C-alpha cells in the first residue's frame, strides 16, 4: 500500500534544473503607450502588411487588455499588467486544414517553419543572459465518422509550437514564453503569443534554493489541503514533473520579481474522477505558501432550493 512518503520521493526524484542558489530579478513593465507601440511593431515584423492603417482600437477594453481589430477577422491583444501580447488572423482561408491527411506532414518541417517567427518575436526581448528553446509541438487534428462507422482520414488543422525562455539557465515556467500557430492550406502564421516579462535591471539579490525534497514537500502540502480526509498517495496522483524555474503569473496579473520556484505537475493516477494538478511554490527558504491564488469573487450565492419535479 503506497503512502505519502512514496509520493514525495517519486516527485522529488523527478526534479530538474536544480541549483543550490539563484538570483532574484526585478521586472519592469513598459508604460501603456510604449507597450502598444512596441506590440504593433512586433506584429509588423511577423505580418509585413500589418501597420496602423489596418488596425482599429476596440472600444470596450476589459481587465487591462487593449484590443485592436485587424483585417481578416484578426486581432491584437496587449496585456498591460504583464506586457504579454497575442495576435490572430482567423479569416476564411485560415479555416482550411494544414493537411487533409496528417500522415503527409513532417513534424520537423512544422517546427522549422515556426522557429523563424519565434526568433523574430523574441529578438527585441532576449538579453545576453537569456535564451529561447523549442519545447513542444501541439497539433490540432480532426476526423469525421459517418453513422455507419466510415471514418475519414485524420486531418491536421493547425500546429502550434511552444518555446520556453530561460534566464541564466532557469526556465520561466507557466504559459509558453512564445507560441506560434500555423494554419490554412499554405501553412501561414495564423496566431502567435508572447508571455515575456522584461527583466528591469541587475539582480537585486541571490537566495539559497531549497532542495527538491523540500520543494516536493511544499507542493504536496498544498495538494493535501485539497483532500484533507486522508493522506494523498501514489494511488491518487502520479507525479509527472518537478521543475525549478522562475514563474510567470497569468497574463492579466502584475508581477514585480522573478524568484526561484518549484513547479510540480501531477496526473490523476488510474481511472478516477479527478483533475491534474500544477502547483507552484517558492523555492526560497523562508516562504512556502503557493505562489498564486484565485482572486475573483463568486457572483452567485448558495441557497438554491432543490427542484420538486425531478424523477429520482
Amino acid at each position, binding site marked *: 500500500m503506497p503512502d505519502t512518503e512514496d509520493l514525495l520521493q517519486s516527485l522529488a526524484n523527478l526534479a530538474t534544473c536544480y541549483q543550490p542558489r539563484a538570483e532574484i530579478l526585478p521586472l519592469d513593465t513598459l508604460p501603456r503607450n510604449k507597450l502598444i507601440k512596441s506590440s504593433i511593431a512586433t506584429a509588423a515584423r511577423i505580418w509585413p502588411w500589418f501597420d496602423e492603417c489596418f488596425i482599429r482600437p476596440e472600444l470596450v477594453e476589459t481587465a487591462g487588455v487593449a484590443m485592436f481589430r485587424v483585417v481578416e477577422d484578426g486581432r491584437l491583444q496587449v496585456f498591460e499588467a504583464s506586457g504579454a501580447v497575442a495576435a490572430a488572423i482567423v479569416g476564411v482561408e485560415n479555416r482550411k486544414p494544414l493537411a487533409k491527411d496528417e500522415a503527409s506532414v513532417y513534424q520537423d518541417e512544422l517546427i522549422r517553419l515556426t522557429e523563424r517567427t519565434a526568433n523574430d518575436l523574441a529578438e527585441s526581448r532576449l538579453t545576453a543572459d537569456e535564451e529561447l528553446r523549442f519545447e513542444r509541438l501541439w497539433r490540432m487534428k480532426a476526423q469525421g465518422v459517418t453513422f455507419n462507422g466510415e471514418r475519414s482520414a485524420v486531418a491536421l488543422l493547425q500546429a502550434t509550437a511552444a518555446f520556453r525562455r530561460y534566464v541564466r539557465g532557469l526556465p520561466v515556467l507557466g504559459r509558453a514564453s512564445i507560441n506560434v500557430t500555423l494554419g490554412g492550406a499554405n501553412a501561414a502564421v495564423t496566431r502567435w503569443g508572447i508571455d515575456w516579462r522584461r527583466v528591469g535591471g541587475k539582480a537585486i539579490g541571490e537566495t539559497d534554493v531549497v532542495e527538491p525534497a523540500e520543494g516536493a514537500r511544499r507542493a504536496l502540502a498544498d495538494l493535501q489541503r485539497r483532500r484533507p480526509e486522508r493522506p494523498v498517495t501514489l494511488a491518487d496522483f502520479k507525479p509527472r514533473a518537478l521543475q525549478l524555474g522562475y514563474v510567470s503569473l497569468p497574463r492579466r496579473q502584475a508581477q514585480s520579481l522573478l524568484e526561484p520556484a518549484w513547479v510540480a505537475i501531477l496526473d490523476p493516477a488510474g481511472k478516477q474522477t479527478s483533475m491534474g494538478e500544477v502547483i507552484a511554490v517558492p523555492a526560497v527558504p523562508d516562504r512556502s505558501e*503557493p505562489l498564486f491564488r484565485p482572486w475573483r469573487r*463568486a457572483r452567485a450565492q448558495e441557497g438554491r432550493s*432543490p427542484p420538486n419535479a425531478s424523477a429520482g
Partner: protein
Amino acid sequence: MANIGIEYIENFAAARAAGVVESGGQDLTYVSDVAEGLREALECKGHTTTVSWIETDVFEVDLRAQSLGGIDQDVADKVDLFLISTHGDYDGAVSLLYNSKVDKFLGTSAEWRLGDTCALEWLLIFGCHSIDRDRPLDHLHIFQGLHLFCGAYGDMFDSFTIDEAGEDVGDNLTSCDSVKDAWCDGVSDWFVDNHPAVVSVETEATYNGGNIDWANTVIESDHLWGHGTTRADVKPDKQYWMAVVWEEG
C-alpha cells in the same frame, strides 16, 4: 446577443464523505476563476448571464433531459451557451461529479438531450475526460439541436496557468474566433496538456465521400451570436456524420 449559463463546483467534501469517489474528487482551486472569467468577458460585450449556480447549488438534474426526469429546460437547455466546471470521468458516457445529491452525486451524459428546445447551441465542460475522441458517435444522442460539445478527451489541469482560461475563451468568442477555436485556444496554456476536444454533428453536404470540406463544417465555422456566422441547428433528420477535433502535444 447570447444568453449565458455558468455553473461550477470547487468543493467536494460532501461527495467524498458519501463515498461516491474512492480516490480523486479533490477540491479545486482555479475553476471558479475560469467560470467567472468567462462570465465577465462575455457580459462586458453585451451578453447576458441568465443562469448562475455554484457549489452545492449545482445539481445533476440541471443537464438531465426533462423527458428523463431532469430540469434541463430551466437550466442548461434554457441558455445559448452553458459552461460547467467540475470533475469528470468517462466510461461510455461522461460522468460529472456534484457536491449535492439532487438527484445524484454523479450525473451521466447518457441522460442529456440538448438543443431540443432550440435554445442551447454550445455546451462547454471544463473538467477531465468528457469526450471520447475515438468514439464520437457515443455522443450523438446529446445533439438534439446542440451545435458543439466542447470538452476534453483526457485530463484537464487545475493550474495557475489556466486561471484566465475563461476570459481567454470569452475574448476569443467575441473576437471572431469560431467557437471551436475559442475553446481549444482559450483552455490551452501551451505548457500542460489540457486535452481540449470538440464534437459536432454535420450534414451530408460537407462529408463529400470522406474528402471532407472542413472549412464549411459546423465545427469549423460556428460562431457565438453577434461575432461571426452562427450556423443553423442540425436537427436529427439532417444529421449525417459527426466531427471530432482535438489537440495533442
